[in-house]
């Protein structure tokens, strides 16, 4: 099947990462809400999602599909 699953996985986690990182930054001083688990999870997902996207794009470049 001609679907590179790394692309949608990477994109989804990158979007989640952006949302949670922004949420983490905006609520950084909110002691009632909170460890700023949104910020840390967001950054982790942003890195994971970006890596998956890089692997996906690299595969496209090397294999041409």
């Amino acid at each position, binding site marked *: *099947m001609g679907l590179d699953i790394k692309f949608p*996985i990477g994109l989804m986690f990158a*979007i989640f990462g952006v949302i949670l990182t922004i949420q983490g930054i905006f609520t950084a001083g909110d002691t009632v809400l909170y460890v700023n688990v949104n910020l840390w999870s967001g950054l982790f997902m942003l890195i994971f999602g970006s890596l998956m996207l890089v692997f996906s794009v690299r595969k496209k470049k090397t294999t041409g599909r």
Partner: protein
Amino acid sequence: METTSALGWIDYAIMLIYFFFVLGIGWALKKFMRSATDFLEAGRSLPAWVTGLAFISANLGALEVIGMAASGAKYGMMTVHFYWIGAIPAMLFLAIFMMPFYYGSKARSVPEYLKLRFDEKTRGFNAFAFAFMTIMASGASMHALALLAERLLGWDYTLSLVGSAAIVLVYTYLGGLSSAIYNEVLQFFLIVIGFLPLVLISLKAIGGWEGIQASLGDNMLHSWKYAASPDQNPMGVEWMGIIIGLGFVLSFGYWCTNFLVVQRAMAAGSMGAARRTPLIGALPKMFIPFLVILPGIIAAALLQGDHSFIPFKEGSETVRDFDQVIPVLLMKYLPTGVLGLGLTALMASFMSGMAGNVSAFNTVFTYDIYQSYINPGKSDKHYLSVGQITTIAGVLVSILAAFIAKQFNNIMDFLQLIFAFINAPLFATFLLGMFTRRTTGHGAFWGLLSGTFAAAIHHGLTVPAGADSLVKGGWLTGGAANALHTYPSEMAQNFWTAIFAFFIALILTLVISYLTKRNKSDTDLKGLVYSLTPRVQDDSKHWYEKPQTLAIIIGAIALILSILFW
């Protein structure tokens, strides 16, 4: 327990984005669905890392996440037996010895392998039993998801049930098995990343492993140390039952013969990829206990300090509802944002279980029931249409099964019992079929049937300690008082029921085979029996891709983990 007020718009946004991607994958695969092989077998073209992660994710359904966390709270580290000795040896055996037959024989399903190796009646028995079991399991998954959404999010039960079923239906209808498998990979990452913050925060709350040790008895923190006698450990089982009952009979019966997981390996693009599938799946499998069992153990530890931490079961003032462990921890420790991620991960686990069952049901119904008994000899296009219609029918029947489970709370316990009777002797049939050429179709069929009856009779003559209903056993002796034997726990009874069923099936299959005429010649059995099949030429390019090398590495890691938590 805190309820709906804890959810913010960001939590709902994360859920919606997940639904969008899941449906998008189905949509992207729609154009590749040109034949029944594409739809029902994923065109046998997927890479090993995809099928390997799907192999685990399809098994990471509702029962696994909710049930194993509950077991962690009740039995502690003993629960890891279901992941280490109760899974890894069987997965290694499947990869090294059994995949060459499943994949090499070109059988499209496990029941079809039984037909090629034995005869039509053995295939029919397995196909009908499997189709019924998978559709009921899919219904149980839907019921659990809808119940959780109702209790946790305040959503309407019927709306949650139909909504989740509709999403699974759309993506499995559009992309068939490929869509189910690709989504299982997405769901795998989501489950791991979504639960990770929960594990880390709740571990911090209890004060790390030292905090757990300070709160719980030593027998909750070891897997083998207290297995010498059933009265020493919370699971009420002894090492013999664990090794033979769980580690051999139940584990090999599930991982080596259940089409739900074997189908993922059969969808791989080559023999090498098919053999690597269970091995790639075994790596994360070993570490999943830290994601689902550890929260249960933490919850048990937190319960020592806060006696209201886990609610009681409905209508009970003494029995805790440990199925609430994950939801309670999610609501207690995660703020809005990652809470949405955790809940989405929980939904993903339910959906992967549902879709896995529906896609396996599709294949077995279309090939092993419809094409074999109802309408043989039609065109490939016809069976593609039947596969798509079966997807719709399968989801609708699952919804019906979910409503039945809701109406009759104990019916799922009863069905689980029937499934256990059917599954227990299965591995004996496959073991003899793959490794002896003398086993006949009559031997396999009657051996399988005898094993199933042996399981039922053993269950009917024995009871676990504290049995309060005939569903627990003793139904042939008129109750617990006259039972022939009382096991220390339900788990011990399950393990020994499986052991009895397996050995009865093994002996009777051998005896009947030697009393009946062979129905397959050596030529017929080439590619189906070990001694008649040329050894597989390994297509691995690197040393670390070789199945034997991978198996040794995985076996060593499993051994180290077992020693660390012995």
